[in-house]
């Protein structure tokens, strides 16, 4: 049932990605200061925004799980966080490339947004060992939800604290002297953002569909008294 609508969604995602990449390379003007490398901005920033929204979504699903006790919300929360952590790796890599190209170093500590993102990423990276350490399935789901809620509250607090610790904030693409992004850049950026969001939703739906299918296979096997595969995941929630 999670597979419903997956095909049109996938097609829309591919189309949107193609459109946004064409805009990035053929439509958006070259940045006056940074030149061609600035185009990584259209990948890096949308990825980061989608990953952060995914973490927030994981927290919202976790609240729904705690309120209703319905294990399905735990699966949503797990998959959201899982996908956002994967996106997070891409954010850190693209951020490092951008930093190397514009400032000459792979990592810069005085870029507060990137540092904040690293800290958020480190916290969510502990989500996996945290789940793994709790054996009872119900308890694992409940504790993981509490983790997701606490981490969700942590995200804005962390961004605020890191930004305040910065004496000097680097000039940002959004805050150019002319005040804001030129029209073509803005359009390209919004397209990229929509493409990344669609990509995230599609991948989340794919993973939920896969989990749901393997859950059904498991139930069928049990009904037929057939032996199941021994190596199933201990931390991923099951979806019915």
């Amino acid at each position: 049932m999670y597979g419903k609508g997956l095909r049109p969604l996938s097609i829309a995602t591919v189309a949107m990605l193609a459109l946004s990449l064409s805009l990035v390379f053929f439509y958006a003007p070259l940045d006056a200061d940074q030149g061609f490398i600035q185009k990584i901005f259209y990948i890096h920033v949308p990825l980061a925004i989608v990953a952060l929204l995914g973490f927030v979504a994981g927290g919202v699903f976790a609240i729904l799980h705690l309120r209703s006790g319905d294990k399905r919300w735990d699966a949503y929360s797990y998959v959201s966080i899982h996908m956002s952590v994967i996106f997070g790796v891409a954010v850190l890599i693209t951020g490092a490339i951008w930093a190397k190209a514009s400032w000459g170093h792979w990592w810069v500590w005085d870029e507060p947004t990137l540092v904040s993102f690293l800290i958020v990423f480190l916290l969510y990276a502990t989500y996996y060992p945290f789940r793994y350490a709790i054996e009872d399935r119900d308890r694992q789901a409940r504790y993981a939800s509490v983790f997701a809620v606490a981490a969700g509250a942590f995200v804005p607090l962390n961004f605020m604290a890191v930004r305040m610790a910065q004496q000097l904030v680097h000039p940002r693409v959004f805050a150019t002297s002319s005040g804001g992004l030129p029209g073509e850049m803005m359009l390209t950026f919004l397209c990229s953002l929509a493409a990344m969001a669609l990509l995230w939703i599609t991948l989340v739906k794919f993973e939920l569909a896969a989990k749901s299918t393997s859950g059904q296979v498991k139930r069928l096997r049990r009904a037929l008294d057939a032996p199941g595969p021994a190596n199933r995941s201990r931390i991923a929630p099951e979806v019915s």
Partner: protein
Amino acid sequence: MTPSRAAFAAILGKDLRAELRTLQSLPAMAIFAVTTFVIFRFGLDRTQLSGDLASGVLWATLLFAAVLGINRLFVTEREEGGFDAIRLAPIDRSVLFAAKATALVIYLLALELIAVPIFALFFLDSVAALGPLVAVLVLADLGLAATGTLISSMAVNSRARDLLVPLVLLPLVVPLMIAATGATEPLLAAGGPGYERFGTWLMVLGLYDLIFVLLGYAVFDFLLED
């Protein structure tokens, strides 16, 4: 239902009585802190500290010493049946969160009562900063106690108990440490205490405390279910 005040007093009193009798956590935390100061003395090869270095050494040490106490916070409840006893009683379960967080604040204050004067004796020129430092310590302790109690209560029911607390707690307290070191750094500056952005940092600490105390209170019920 038993009034929450009575249940709170019962749990807190029991914890403090047991700690005073066995001295399981506090001496370990204090000894650990003092040894860490000595390691920093050689690691940094400094006999005098001020400003950012002093603030960093102080907070890193206090945080790691706190982790020792946080690890042990729920061990007796887990091993000697306290969780069951409390769940059988007609009390509001959030009381356990409040009592344990309060106990942790008391342990942390006791730790700082020992460790901070020794830190000053080892590394500082003057003790003028210690007065205003108390405000930073108290606010940071509240936040550390709220997150620590939350994580500890979950870690104790896992099979990686001692691993989980530092693993999850450290990234979670990064904003708290940013604010605490930010406020402490000018206080310990070489030329006498300064108060640059002191109020702002105290407000960040207060905000962190507020958010995590409320959060812990709200979700603690779910952690005691089985």
